[in-house]
């Protein structure tokens, strides 16, 4: 627990990172809501209410996309900061196993990221029901599936970022993972020839949990398959990061 608290401290004290992460999660939802509420107040005939199921879809998509960016940046920072600041060797000479020094990065980064995502969802759900007006509100199941989608996608991205950044000892993974999430994975999903192999793409598996996307999703899979694919991605990159952390010169 003390090591996890130390990881949290290292990330929490990075002012720039914290501000950007808050903006990408809570800030993005809040600003969107303020704009929609203001537009609705100014012209209710032309602009709908800020709540309801349709808007929850939008807030969830925002949290999944921008939340992933925040998760990637936080994960890459957690994965590289000890090495890039030259402190890793000082932690190694305490005698703590390198595998432990690596592993604690995951709960440390999650403890920073998940509260932001949670507050983002509290705002989203609060407005979904509180400002629904005459719009239909989502069922509880719909809400839980929306949360499952955003959490699974962002958490897997965070673990991938930690593993890949530790493996490569470089924050270039931020660019690589953002490109994967926003462009490359979607291009691959659009190539029909690949067929069922597309199930192995993490975004396809995460989208399986999204009630909004899953209705029209061409890549159908079972809950178990989706879960296994997501866990597989996280495990592969976690193991790669841990392996290199154990092996590298400190």
């Amino acid at each position, binding site marked *: 627990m003390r090591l996890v608290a130390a990881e949290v*401290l*290292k990330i929490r004290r990075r002012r720039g990172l914290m501000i950007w992460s808050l903006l990408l999660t809570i800030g993005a939802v809040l600003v969107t809501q303020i704009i929609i509420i203001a537009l609705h107040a100014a012209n209710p005939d032309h602009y709908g209410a800020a709540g309801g199921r349709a808007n929850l879809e939008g807030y969830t998509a925002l949290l999944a996309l921008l939340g992933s960016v925040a998760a990637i940046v936080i994960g890459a920072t957690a994965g590289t900061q000890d090495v890039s*600041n030259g402190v890793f*060797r000082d932690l190694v*000479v*305490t005698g703590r196993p390198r595998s432990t020094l690596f592993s604690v990065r995951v709960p440390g980064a999650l403890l920073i990221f998940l509260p932001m995502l949670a507050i983002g969802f509290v705002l989203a759900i609060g407005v979904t029901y509180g400002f629904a007006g005459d719009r239909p509100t989502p069922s509880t199941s719909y809400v839980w599936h929306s949360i499952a989608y955003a959490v699974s996608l962002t958490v897997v991205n965070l673990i991938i970022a930690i593993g890949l950044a530790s493996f490569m000892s470089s924050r270039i993974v931020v660019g690589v993972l953002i490109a994967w999430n926003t462009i490359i994975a979607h291009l691959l999903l659009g190539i029909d020839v690949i067929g069922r192999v597309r199930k192995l793409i993490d975004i396809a598996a995460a989208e399986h949990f999204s009630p909004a996307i899953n209705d029209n999703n061409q890549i159908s899979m079972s809950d178990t398959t989706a879960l296994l694919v997501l866990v597989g991605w996280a495990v592969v990159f976690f193991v790669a990061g841990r392996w290199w952390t154990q092996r590298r*010169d400190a």
Partner: protein
Amino acid sequence: METVIETRALTKRFGDRAAVDGVDLVVPAGVAFGFLGPNGAGKTTMIRTLLGLTKASSGEVSLLGLPQPAKRREALARVGAIVEEPRFHPHLTGRENLRIVAAARDVAADGRIDESLARVGLAQRADDRVKTYSLGMRQRLGIARCLLADPQLLILDEPMNGLDPAGILEMRHLIRAFVEEGRTVFLSSHLLDEVEKTCDQVAIVDRGRVILQGGVRDIAATGDPTVLIDVDDTEAARRILTAEARITAVEQEGTELRIRLSDGIGAADVNRALVQAGVAVSRLEPARATLEEKFLEVTSRLEGNE
């Protein structure tokens, strides 16, 4: 004799190059031990290998009597080390940086943070971000980080690097104080003078090999005794002394002659020979051999052998 570091045939290779080449090293407990060598001699690689930061290619290492890497965790729990320059998270304060490392050590380490900061004179600046610290302050914070382990052995890599004269003096006092507390300090340095002033024992290393090892004074005193003399007629004195077979070298430095004696001849014999030849001797003084001379002697001998 209790030893804190012991290596046998320790070797670290990078490709064909041996940065540490079959080193047998014995560091006794309770001393300041200097690991002296020119830049690039393999001092830092040796330290990194001792601490398990890099894997040895072959050979054996024992720290605090515990074989490495088998008993790594037990040994390192009582070892504090600064490898190369002390590095920290610049966005954290000095105290926070110590908290990070204390978290990786036993619970008691948390309770040593304030004490360690006070010990190195950083209590007043402990809550400032490390990026505002001078190099000297970072060196001291590095020492404070070592003290979190309440170490039996401190391994300090070039601890005087970048320090001003006051900082060097302060570091020397700190190291001697650690030794007086019964700790062992193993420090690497290329600063001969500092090793001579700070350390009790020394190993001279060059090109990955330990050339000499022993007490600082013993090493400095090895070799032929040297005397310095002032005379009224330098030329005559040189002629007389050069003719004496038991005198191995006669060098002139200004008006002073530096002569090296072999077994069977002493300073009194030199004096008698000069006086009997009519040369007046105004000064005759045994030269204090320095570690620097010994260091240059052994390293230049190596170069000559190439």
